[in-house]
């Protein structure tokens, strides 16, 4: 079986959520099929500047075919178009122009995906140019991995036909599936909630981390980009208040590159970007992981924390994180400072609760996010699709005039109409 994994960026050193997800899946499927990664020459997700050479190279044993991006992203133009389609009545042409402005626009990449003799093509991240156009060109081969967050882009009209017409959809969470099914009415499309696994070491060395970074106090950990969009500003505000309330309480350790200012506080330690070994050692040393993000389709670090037996304190306004905390019975969540303080205090001080949550997290990870489980779900889906004939066709785009008719509602309004909240009552 020949498989393609199409993703906006790819590389051993590219650690964006969807990109890392794509790399893990490509590497895990490689023993079972002939896998080729199809991607762009971009390394930077803001500009899509062509930084890597076009052509074929091998990354961790997987052939990677790169295509140049036609134009870099103009942030002003993209921002203007986003504001228009998200907040105003607009046309299909406006949405297509928004998609092109967002990038990474690479027509040769889409042509290659359409013409090469792949049996199936995994398209990562529904909102990017390559996924949308490839899904329209080859819906019978397209298996979409949407990595959709609850943001207005999901309410754009151009995506609903794609969600309804691809061959299958691999969701990251139950909340993501509920959201996309609500917006596209695509419950009949074969789908599975699968997510992604992680290579969690069986023996992480907490003491090594403490010695190396000279941290001897108990601490909560945040792993990821330190960014306002990830909820870090709110986290810092909450934590400073908490620290003032409990002068000798838990510290906060941050791992990851900062694109916002980290407060100068004696109990907040920013260690920058660290290796995977240090990350897992840090998680083992931590009392808990904090995930302050409002928008996540799947938090890999939360899964890793659970895999290592640590409870998670998540932002309850992110449906996915809240749902995972409830389903896994391995984390608490907060929606205000008072809840943050109470939950953090509980996890810090209540040993039995902490241990039960940590144990539940490990069980949840092993049951649903260990690699054999993930691989099995992917292989079962491929086997099912190979047996079943492709019957759906994609709805054609409106004609030239209709495409320019301003009759589409603001995407933010569409999103507001979609039911929100954690999906509970699912075992997996």
């Amino acid at each position, binding site marked *: 079986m020949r498989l393609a994994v199409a993703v906006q960026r790819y590389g051993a050193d590219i650690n964006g959520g969807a990109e890392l997800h794509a790399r893990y899946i490509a590497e895990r499927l490689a023993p079972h099929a002939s896998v080729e990664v199809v991607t762009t020459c971009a390394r930077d997700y803001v500009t899509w500047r062509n930084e890597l050479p076009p052509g074929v190279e091998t990354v961790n044993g997987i052939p990677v075919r790169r295509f140049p991006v036609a134009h870099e992203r103009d942030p002003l133009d993209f921002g203007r178009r986003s504001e228009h389609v998200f907040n105003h009545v607009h046309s299909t042409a406006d949405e297509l122009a928004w998609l092109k402005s967002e990038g990474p626009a690479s027509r040769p990449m889409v042509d290659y995906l359409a013409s090469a003799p792949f049996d199936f093509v995994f398209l990562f991240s529904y909102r990017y140019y390559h996924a949308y156009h490839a899904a329209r060109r080859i819906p019978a081969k397209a298996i979409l991995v949407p990595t959709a967050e609850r943001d207005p882009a999901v309410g754009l009209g151009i995506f609903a036909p794609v969600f309804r017409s691809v061959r299958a959809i691999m969701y990251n969470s139950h909340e993501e599936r509920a959201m996309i099914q609500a917006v596209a009415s695509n419950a009949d499309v074969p789908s599975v909630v699968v997510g992604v696994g992680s290579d969690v070491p069986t023996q992480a060395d907490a003491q090594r981390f403490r010695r190396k970074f000279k941290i001897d106090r108990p601490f909560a950990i945040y792993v990821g980009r330190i960014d306002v969009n990830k909820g870090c500003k709110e986290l810092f505000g909450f934590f400073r208040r908490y620290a003032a309330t409990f002068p000798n309480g838990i510290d906060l350790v941050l791992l990851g590159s900062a694109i916002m200012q980290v407060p100068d506080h004696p109990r907040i330690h920013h260690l920058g970007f660290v290796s995977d070994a240090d990350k897992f050692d840090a998680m083992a040393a931590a009392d808990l992981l904090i995930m302050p993000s409002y928008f996540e389709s799947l938090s890999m670090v939360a899964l890793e924390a659970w895999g290592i037996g640590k409870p998670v304190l998540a932002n309850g306004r992110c449906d996915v994180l809240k749902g995972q905390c409830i389903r896994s019975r391995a984390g608490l969540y907060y929606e205000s400072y008072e*809840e943050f303080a109470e939950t953090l205090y509980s996890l810090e001080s209540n040993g039995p609760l902490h241990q039960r949550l940590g144990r539940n997290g490990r069980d949840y990870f092993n049951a649903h996010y260990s690699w054999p489980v993930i691989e099995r779900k992917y292989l079962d889906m491929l086997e099912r699709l190979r047996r079943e004939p492709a019957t759906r066709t994609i709805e054609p785009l409106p004609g030239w005039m209709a495409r320019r008719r301003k009759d589409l509602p603001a995407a933010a309004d569409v999103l507001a109409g979609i039911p929100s909240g954690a999906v509970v009552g699912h075992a997996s």
Partner: protein
Amino acid sequence: MTDMQIRSDSVDVEQIMRQIRTRIREKRGVDYTEEEIKELARVKLEKFLDPTGVRSDLLAQFRRTNAEPDGNPNFNFENTTLFHSRYGIVRFIRRMLQPILKLFFNVNPLIDALHIQSDLNARGFRRDELQYELIHNLVLETTRLGIQVKNLKMQVDSMSGRLDFDERRARALEGVVQYRPGAVPPLQPTVSAPGRAVETEAQAAERRTRRRRRRGRRPGGGRDGMPQGSGDAGNGVETRGDADSPRVASEARPDSGGSAPAPTSNVE
């Protein structure tokens, strides 16, 4: 702070969150509704505007300026002002042609308007200075008050946490005294205790030795405001599994009974 009992392997996160929220509601007392907050925001600032502490005569001066019926104009527009020139010949020609000009339009409303405008300008300049000072002072005061409120809020939070801890510790101590089988009554002061024999020096020394021995068995030192100190209740439960596991709160409570298992070491 929340004091939850974990008695079984099945942890219901939603139930824990409900408990936490109930406790927050109990602590917070009355909540403002959205409507009440909007109503507060609509109240005019004047109701709260008090010159005390800002500048004693600022408000009075501000009101006086507003009430001034006439101010001194910065320019006086007369009939001739528009036709004035420092050159005599020009003035002469303009004066000669003035009647002809007035045949075309009436200059007087223009002069009146400019006159009034000049007056308004002069008043505006004076008012602007006062307004600037007023706003400047208000901003300073608001900022200062904001910082004070923040500090007070932190102090209240801190006090609340410590009070909570003290209450819990007191309950734990009471519980130990009340429920421990064969418990002895609480120690009373040895001096001037009516109706009780004064203990001998040897007995006191023995008691001190026992206390020191007990203290030596306890793991680590407690942390301020942290429930680790509840291990002082003396029920023999370890307060910490190892250096990296969290403190134990509920285990120290006597009402947790034997159902709450002791903490074990973490994954590391």
